[in-house]
């Protein structure tokens, strides 16, 4: 006979975004993310090298185009390092949100047959991309030092930018993943939107090169101030900060409001959809 403590009757919550114990949610999150990360490179000859090689290859092409063809590179201090840094940061966002769209459907077996906090699925996608980001940042800093950028104390502020970027990525992942099961257009829409965001963010160019009127529009994009801050704090202390680019603190409230709005929408939407995801698949 088993000598177990007799558990008490408890209301079962039904499926939800969170809930059902933190320990289990964290273990699941870690397990799914690690297996997915391993699986991506399983069976490939170069394995984890691809994680680093992909942004480096993109970097090589873009660097050639923007220093040899367009000559933009020569006007910006430390352009190659800046370009690589920006590519690594935006790739993290694109990769995570892109994989998140179909994530709930891809994990159909789990969602339809077991109970667990549904939020684990989009979070695990972001975590997988975060492993890639970690590897890539190591390479970035090798380049940063190799190109003679002097280490400054503001490097220590980089985690703030990263946290803000990760939170935004999670929020967008929650939105696109929760919409996809019922609205299959989301996959195509997000592919296009993601490309638009890539060019509308100061990745290939610094924000001050964008003409005035267009610049205000570009600055609505909450990723723009994040990239600019990363640039100022890590690569070029002389670069204008978001405040100087916008002109006033008031104008900076707008991307901030959009940022908060996206996060609020994500929480509301995912909470609303989570209980019915298993039925919508």
């Amino acid at each position, binding site marked *: 006979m*088993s000598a177990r403590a*007799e558990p008490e009757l408890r*209301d079962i919550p039904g499926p939800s975004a969170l809930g059902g114990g933190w320990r289990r949610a964290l273990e699941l999150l870690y397990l799914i993310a690690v297996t997915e990360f391993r699986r991506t490179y399983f069976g490939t000859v170069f394995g984890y090298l691809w994680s680093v090689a992909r942004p480096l290859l993109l970097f090589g092409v873009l660097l050639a185009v923007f220093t040899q063809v367009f000559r933009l590179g020569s006007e910006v201090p430390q352009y190659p390092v800046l370009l690589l840094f920006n590519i690594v940061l935006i790739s993290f966002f694109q990769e995570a949100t892109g994989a998140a769209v179909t994530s709930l459907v891809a994990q159909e077996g789990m969602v*339809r*047959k077991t109970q667990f906090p549904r939020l684990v699925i989009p979070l695990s996608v972001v975590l997988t991309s975060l492993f890639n980001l970690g590897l890539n940042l190591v390479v970035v800093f090798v380049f940063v030092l190799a190109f003679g950028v002097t280490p400054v104390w503001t490097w220590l502020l980089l985690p703030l930018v990263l946290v803000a970027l990760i939170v935004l990525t999670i929020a967008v992942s929650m939105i696109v993943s929760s919409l996809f099961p019922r609205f299959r257009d989301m996959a195509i829409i997000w592919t296009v939107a993601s490309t638009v965001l890539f060019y509308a963010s100061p990745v290939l160019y610094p924000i001050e090169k964008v003409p005035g009127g267009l610049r205000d529009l570009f600055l609505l994009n909450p990723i723009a101030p994040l990239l600019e801050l990363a640039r100022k704090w890590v690569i070029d202390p002389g670069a204008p900060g978001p405040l100087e680019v916008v002109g006033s603190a008031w104008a900076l409230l707008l991307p901030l409001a959009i940022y908060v709005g996206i996060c609020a929408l994500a929480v509301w939407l995912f909470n609303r959809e989570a209980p019915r995801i298993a039925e919508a698949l």
Partner: protein
Amino acid sequence: MVIEVQGVDKSFRIPEHRIDSIKERVAHPLTSMEYREHRALRNVSFDVRRGEFFGIVGRNGSGKSSLLKILASIYRQDAGRVRVAGRVAPFIELGVGFNVELTARENGVLNGVLMGLTRREALASLDAVLEFAELEDFVDLKLKNYSSGMMVRLAFAIMVQADADIMLIDEVLAVGDAAFAQKCMDVFYEKRRIGRTIVLVTHDMATVQALCHRAMVIDEGQVQYVGRPEDAAIRYYGLNFSDVEPEHAVGAGASVDVQVRVEHARLRDETGEPVEHLTAGAQIELDVVIEAARDLEAPQFLFQVRNADGLGVFEFDRRLDERVPAGQRVRLAGRIENRLVPGRYAVDCWVRQAPDGTGEVVQGLRLFHFVVDGVAPKNGVVSIWTDVEPVVEAVRVP
């Protein structure tokens, strides 16, 4: 009480014309999203007690699987209250939360954690899982390369090894070979013995009668009956007959009332001990006692033996040319020649009443299962004695 369900309702909105994309929306701008409301469960209430083996039976689409998913917290009920005590391990739609892109090992750990184990516990139980499922050699194979039978075995093994307080099991016996079905039964008996709570959804009345302490019949989302497994089985058969074979249906007014009851039904070996396994060729000793719950006029007993595929292998009919008053018992015992090939068999008995020779069915009873041990041949349902020998014949050349 480990499960308490009170007044649960669940509806699904089924789109009549599904609009999944903008293109369809543009193509049919005036089509509104029309939904049909399907009420899968209506005011369902029942309790399951600690250590109970609880059966849920019902026809396809009766709502039993939706109910199980609500108990497993996969669906959320629209109304009502569900309370559960302890850790729950679900086995639903013949599986657990598999990702076919992952290996058996990865899926094993992942699903162990999903069922409430820690990662360490899940890893530690992996060997036992693979041994039970007999898949040790395929541990690093991706599940997409598994056969459906292998996948069911792995899923069931993971669910069993998670050793939850409550197991919710949907139709595991419907698939797999005889040996695996027997293994499942062994697990059920073991879990029943050590006092785990099991909720089993099934079509197999023999399992219900053999294992369940209580059973519930559900039809069109409503609870029809909760109580003795024998009575539940009878009501379940009643539902099926009234639908499928109206002409053979139970007589008017009699519907699902209990007419006969199985006192006991089993096979015996030569010494008279009850057995569930026979060796191929060994004689079958049948021992069935049926009690009449009301007066039966010249009852007929039609025995049917079906194999695991549901095929009727043989049947025989016995008639009692007298009136059996209520409360009286009828014994049907004797020897049966055994030409069955190895495999799993079910024995049904149809009780008919033939006052005017029409042979109206009083009641169908699933009596029991048995297994003929041995290696089944590739083809054939019976083994027939033959005297055929190959001999080389000299051919005279002209």
